[in-house]
């Protein structure tokens, strides 16, 4: 497609896996970079840009521009751990609490206070390191990263500099189908533990700012990726997979809106074939997966355009902010040389020592991770679309697993969950843990329909009641007398009744209006209260309709 498309991903937990909306904006055009793996072999002969540039030609030019360059993207992610207490003190942390109510001398950095490490932080770090296939450092340490800023009470952040707890891993993911699908594997450079700073709010009138220290000292895991991503969608999916992993592991709720998952992206481009990297630009203020996608695509276009215009010296190493409203990146500040954080080992904290037994224990207790689930679902014969949907949310996957482990038909169970059940959850804004339909009952429902006890249509009707009020399938069938009628004699009687009660239509049918079969079928359904087996009904109806001619 030569025209430029502007896509958004909306990732709702319970709708069908990401929907894509394509838009073209007047005047400002964005291209999505094709990843090298999906580029077609044929090269189109490009037209040189014409003087009167129509949107169509302009988009072709932008396409050509971005095709000549390769984007190198790396992501630094901060994951806020869902421990009950902070990293170095016993203050609880609850998002949304009244400001400055969860504080103590330690997290406020008052003189004489000493940090004491929360054992859960190590546990979560090891869990994540293993889940990301990293090598764990059995001996690591904390360091002080020193700088002055109003939200940093101690004047330094306790972090890990040269010996992080985990290094050299990778993450597997599958790109959404509407972006071409495909499997990717991206490297993870390191994972380390550190503490969060407080929250800094800038006041309206501008001459002072405000600090809330509730968040100061909350444990974070920083995940640094290898610069393996090449397009906005790869980067966005990387972030989405990290969210999936941390939620599967239960180490964080991975919420970008709440700030428990924060991503900073580094983007540079280089002409295809060049081995040196281009100048790297950092992008901050990305609050959703779709912003990650769009910001990167914008930045790639911006840099590519500057390159082709001969202005690549205007691409400087800097931090830019993504402006959601304007849909563009803007300069935040130019980097005046690299910051000097004067790292040195944190003298108040001892070495972090892991034993092989400890690590093995955690490894054995890891749940089935998203990648494993996807591969297992694929092997079961589900389509990629089903796989991506079911494995996206750990609770949905568990529900599905519970259903099929009790013997339900795999494809039918997937269809029910992805269709009617997902629609219900979306309408009522419920999670799958909150619906009243239990997996056992879904199994029963599927079996009842498959076995012919009730018709598919009736099944859908009682599903709604089961979702809203619970109860058992057997109970509802009995209570409402829903058993399907499959006795041909009984159906025959009903057909006879309908035919005798509608002589005019019968005549019309015999006269050639065969469409009226549907009318008769409907009438039989009505008197049978929807219980007549449709297939049998139509068979008998047809016989009787054609018999007396």
């Amino acid at each position, binding site marked *: 497609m030569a025209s430029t498309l502007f896509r958004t991903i909306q990732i709702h937990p319970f709708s069908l896996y990401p929907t894509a909306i394509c838009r073209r904006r007047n005047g400002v055009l964005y291209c999505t970079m094709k990843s090298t793996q999906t580029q077609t072999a044929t090269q189109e002969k490009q037209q040189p840009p014409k003087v009167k540039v129509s949107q169509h030609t302009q988009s072709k030019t932008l396409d050509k521009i971005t095709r000549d360059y390769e984007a190198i993207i790396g*992501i630094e992610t901060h994951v806020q751990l869902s421990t*009950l207490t902070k990293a170095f003190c*016993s*203050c*609880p942390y609850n998002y949304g609490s009244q*400001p*400055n*109510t*969860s*504080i*103590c001398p330690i997290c406020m950095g*008052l*003189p*004489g*206070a*000493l940090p*004491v*490490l*929360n*054992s859960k932080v*190590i546990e979560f770090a090891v869990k994540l390191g293993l889940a990301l296939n990293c090598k764990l450092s059995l001996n690591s*340490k904390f360091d002080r990263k*020193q*700088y*002055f*800023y*109003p939200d940093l009470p101690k004047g330094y952040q306790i972090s890990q*500099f*040269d010996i992080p707890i985990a290094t050299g891993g990778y993450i597997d993911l599958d790109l959404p189908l509407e972006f071409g699908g495909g499997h990717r594997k991206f490297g993870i*450079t*390191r994972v380390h533990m550190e503490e969060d700073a407080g929250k*800094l*709010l800038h006041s309206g009138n*501008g001459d*002072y*700012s*405000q*600090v*809330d220290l509730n968040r100061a000292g909350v444990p974070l895991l920083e995940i*640094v990726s290898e*610069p393996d991503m090449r397009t906005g969608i790869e980067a966005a999916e990387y972030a989405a997979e990290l969210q999936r992993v941390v939620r599967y592991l239960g180490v964080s709720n991975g919420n970008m809106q709440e700030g428990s998952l924060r991503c900073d992206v*580094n983007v*540079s481009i280089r002409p295809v074939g060049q081995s040196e990297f281009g100048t*790297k630009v950092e992008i901050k203020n990305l609050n959703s997966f779709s912003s990650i996608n769009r910001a990167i695509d914008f930045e790639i276009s911006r840099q590519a355009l500057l390159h082709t215009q001969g202005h690549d010296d205007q691409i400087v190493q800097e931090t830019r902010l993504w402006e959601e409203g304007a849909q563009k990146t803007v300069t935040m*500040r130019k980097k005046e040389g*690299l*910051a*000097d*954080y*004067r*790292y*040195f*080992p944190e*003298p*108040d*904290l*001892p*070495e*972090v*020592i892991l034993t092989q037994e400890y690590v093995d224990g955690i490894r054995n207790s890891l749940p089935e991770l998203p990648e494993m689930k996807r591969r297992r679902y694929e092997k079961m014969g589900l389509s990629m679309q089903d796989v991506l949907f079911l494995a996206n949310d750990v609770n949905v996957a568990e529900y599905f697993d519970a259903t099929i482990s009790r013997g339900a038909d795999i494809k039918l169970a997937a269809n029910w969950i992805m269709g009617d059940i997902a629609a219900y959850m979306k309408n009522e804004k419920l999670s799958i843990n909150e619906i009243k339909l239990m997996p056992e009952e879904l199994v029963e429902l599927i079996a009842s329909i498959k076995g012919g006890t009730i018709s598919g249509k009736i099944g859908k009707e009682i599903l709604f009641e089961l979702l809203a009020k619970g109860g058992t399938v057997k109970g509802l069938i009995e209570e409402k007398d829903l058993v399907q009628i499959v006795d041909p004699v009984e159906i025959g009687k009903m057909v006879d009744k309908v035919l005798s009660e509608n002589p005019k239509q019968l005549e019309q049918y015999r006269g050639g209006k065969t469409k009226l079969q549907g009318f008769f079928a409907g009438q039989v359904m009505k008197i049978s209260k929807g219980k007549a087996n449709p297939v049998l009904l139509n068979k008998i109806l047809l016989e009787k309709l054609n018999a007396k001619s």
Partner: protein
Amino acid sequence: MGSRTLLMLTNFKFKSSFASSSSKPFYLVKSSPTIRKLSTKTRSSLQPPDVCRLAETARISLAPNEVEEFAPKIRQVIDWFGQLQAVDLDSVEPAFRADTEGDNLREDVPETFENKEALIASVPSYKEPYIKVPKVLNKE
């Protein structure tokens, strides 16, 4: 905060970002060799302190005469520690830390600090419910 150490005064420069374009991450390259190479030389091999820069990074304001006055004194302290340069470290593995005890861990059990009012009261500039600070836009 615990002990202050004069390590802060030495001129170590570390790159802050790891998503760098070099093929080998900085931290995997042994960073201490600069000390080791000088192990046979004495005091004059250590770089003199850049007192202006040190004061800047520590956010301590010094008048020019104070800079002049302190520079030799700071240098003396560094050179005194510089005696360690004489130790032959060629066959010694770098230690992570100076102590030998490990683990001092705490269970993940919440405890509210009782006297939060005293904490708030000690804040010099407090505008309920926030700590009031001057507007600072750039980090460092």
